[in-house]
């Protein structure tokens, strides 16, 4: 087990039962992702991208097999440890941003720091800095409904960074954005990956995102079809 590997998937299987039918969303997936690597997960819808995203992120439990994050098998973690992992180790970015609508940009970004136990003022200060770093320094008191899609995704990226995670998981981060905004978001993510050494795992359809990545994992029918160097 190398310490440079941050995510290890071993014989990962996830079945869903729909009535009498068993759907094999993931069927024996093995994958190692290195620290600081930028990996795109690509495949048609229903190929298991989102299931993989959920399993790596500790949002769902595998039917069989293991997910190791920093050498720790996350299926062995209790609810507290799992919450800690989601809070401190992993930052999530979604296609539909998933910001808390009643909170301002600043409060949204500061929310993960609350769960990390950061003092209130310190968390707000950090959130302000992060928002400035994603280019939203002037709109910190706006609520999501008052921001454009691209700006909302920037807030979501800042939120994902709030507790200095080792891993950023992104599920179709440019899926709801126009071309130009999408390019800006990709540049932002790519920059974070390169400059901060963040491990970036993105499920995507977006060719521009795929091109920027170090490795491309092609999924089909719940299995890895092929892995390409970017």
């Amino acid at each position, binding site marked *: 087990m190398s310490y440079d590997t941050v995510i290890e998937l071993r014989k990962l299987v996830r079945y869903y039962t729909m009535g009498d039918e068993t759907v094999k969303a993931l069927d024996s997936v093995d994958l190692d992702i290195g620290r600081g690597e930028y990996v795109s997960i690509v495949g048609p819808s229903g190929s298991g991208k989102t299931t993989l995203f959920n399993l790596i992120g500790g*949002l769902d439990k595998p039917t069989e097999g293991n997910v190791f994050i920093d050498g720790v098998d996350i299926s062995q973690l209790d*609810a507290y440890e799992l919450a800690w*992992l*989601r809070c401190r*180790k992993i930052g999530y970015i979604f296609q*539909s941003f*998933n910001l808390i609508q009643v909170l301002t940009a600043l409060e949204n970004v500061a929310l993960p720091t609350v*769960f*990390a136990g950061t003092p209130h003022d310190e968390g707000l200060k950090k959130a302000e800095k992060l928002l400035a770093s994603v280019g939203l320094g002037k709109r910190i008191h706006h609520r999501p409904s008052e921001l454009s899609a691209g700006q909302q995704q920037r807030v979501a990226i800042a939120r994902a960074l709030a*507790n200095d995670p080792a891993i950023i998981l992104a599920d179709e981060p440019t899926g709801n954005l126009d071309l130009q905004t999408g390019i800006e978001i990709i540049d932002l993510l790519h920059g974070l990956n390169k400059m901060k050494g963040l491990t970036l795992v993105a499920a995507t359809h977006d060719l521009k995102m795929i091109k920027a990545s170090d490795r491309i994992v092609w999924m089909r029918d719940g299995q890895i079809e092929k892995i390409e160097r970017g």
Partner: protein
Amino acid sequence: MSGEKRMVYFTVRDAYRLGIGYIRRRFQRTAINVASIALANSFLTSLILTDLFYATYNKFQGGSIGVDAYQYWLVAVALIVSVVGITNAMLISVYERYREIGTMKCIGALDQHILMLFLIESIIQGAAGGVIGFIFGVVAAIVSSGFTTGFDIILKIPAISLLGYLLGTTFLSVMLSIIASIYPAWRASKLPPVEALSYEL
């Protein structure tokens, strides 16, 4: 992941802060819950106080008027209706916030944090409804019994006993609000994050 203690934090103060945010910015739904509690409590308060006014009147003026017992049954029904109404409103509020609950779990919230968030909101609503209802109840009692007992009857009631009723009925309102919210809050807290995140309203 070694060495460091793996803990997540969400204090009552954090929940209060967030709860106030929800209440302020989703004011309409909150207002309906508060109004429901306030209505029930004003009914209860006005009945209790009318009873008290009549008793005081009887004592000082030697009358023999009273409140019919069946009216207390009506109040009990009003309280139950209010509880059911709040449960319904809170369930809708949980559905509306499915994605947000999933998101909160992604950034470190435990089940009990979600539970606490919803319960604190219901406590705030219950307390607000209780106090508002009490004020309306006092006014209603004075107006309805004043013509019989004289409007200065309120002056003959010791302030301490009014305060007692305020605290008592507000406490009852908070309890009712909590009872009404336990099931919705519990459902919200048990949501698996994946399901909550993929929910389309």
